[in-house]
């Protein structure tokens, strides 16, 4: 069974990454930061799911 939550967070990370080129310089770091946060959440969720199996 796949971890839907990890997939959801990974999708959000991808969405934020796609926004980085269109973000003004002022908000670029914030956008990257949100993308990285979702990537970490995806990884944490994946590990959590695997540890429960």
């Amino acid at each position, binding site marked *: 069974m796949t971890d839907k939550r990890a997939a959801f967070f990974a999708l959000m990370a991808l*969405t*934020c990454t796609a926004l980085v080129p269109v973000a003004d310089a002022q908000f670029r770091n914030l956008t990257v930061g949100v993308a990285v946060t979702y990537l970490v959440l995806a990884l944490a969720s994946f590990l959590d799911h695997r540890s429960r199996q």
Partner: protein
Amino acid sequence: MEDLTLWLVVLVALGFDFVNGFHDAANSIATVVSTRVLTPRQAVMWAAGFNFIAFLVFGTHVATTIAKDVVVQDVLSIGVIFAGLLGAIVWDLITFYLGLPTSSSHALVGGMAGAAVAKAGFDVLVTEGIRKIGLFIVLSPLIGLALGLILTVVFAWSFHRVRRVDRLNKGFRRGQLVSAAAFSLGHGANDAQKTMGIILALLIAGGHVQAGGDVPLWVVLAAHTAIGLGTLTGGWRIVKTMGSKITRLQPAGGMAAESAAAATLFFTSAAGIPVSTTHTITGAIVGVGASRRLSAVRWGVASRVVWAWVLTIPGAFLIAAVSYKVVELFA
């Protein structure tokens, strides 16, 4: 005669602010009502009070963005602003009737853009300003979601050894009073400022304020009064969607959601970015639900919110554009 029209449109703008408070009251109070921290009446009064005092805490950066960064100032006229407001109000009322937690802010931006484009074509849109607003249409719910989830996990880790759950819940209920107040403060700051921006644009168009001038104090006070009174009147249809249909909340979850949304609103208000308070709190509530498991979120309801999210700007844009053409016939 032109002055009379201008003041009438100022009244319509304050009416929009009232409807905004009425429509968004649910966002501020849904979690405190659903976790039974306050009765609906107490919660509405609590939120309205903090909506009003927001002007003491935040500047007027969001108002300036709305007045100057959506459409070029040359195109602004009383007719354009009236049609833009009409588009936003009609869209808000349609979605209120349908019980959808849409964004009054996006409706306002869509309405202003629609009316201005109907007058002078797409060249009047300020690309940089719209790009900034567009970026945060996506980012603000995502930041709310991530913060909501992270705070829930932090709470769970910090208090998992506590055996007296009822006592812990009591503490979180008290904490929710603070987080609901913070969220209402952020809501008052971000949403009331949008109306201030509209009135500032009107005053500039009418020659009462110089281009580049600051928001007059009476505008600040009038906007916060209107949103506070709107919140006091409340919108119960949406309380139900926000408070219990997206995910079931406990006091700790309610506090996490409100704190996450408040932090997002504080940041965006200080940076002068008009965001949707509705979508920010929706994202935060989804984040709290997702901290348990993804199936704790009722995705059917959340997807209705997303559809409303996607349709708001085009919907308000179209209504405002048509309204402008009608206004033009009578002008």
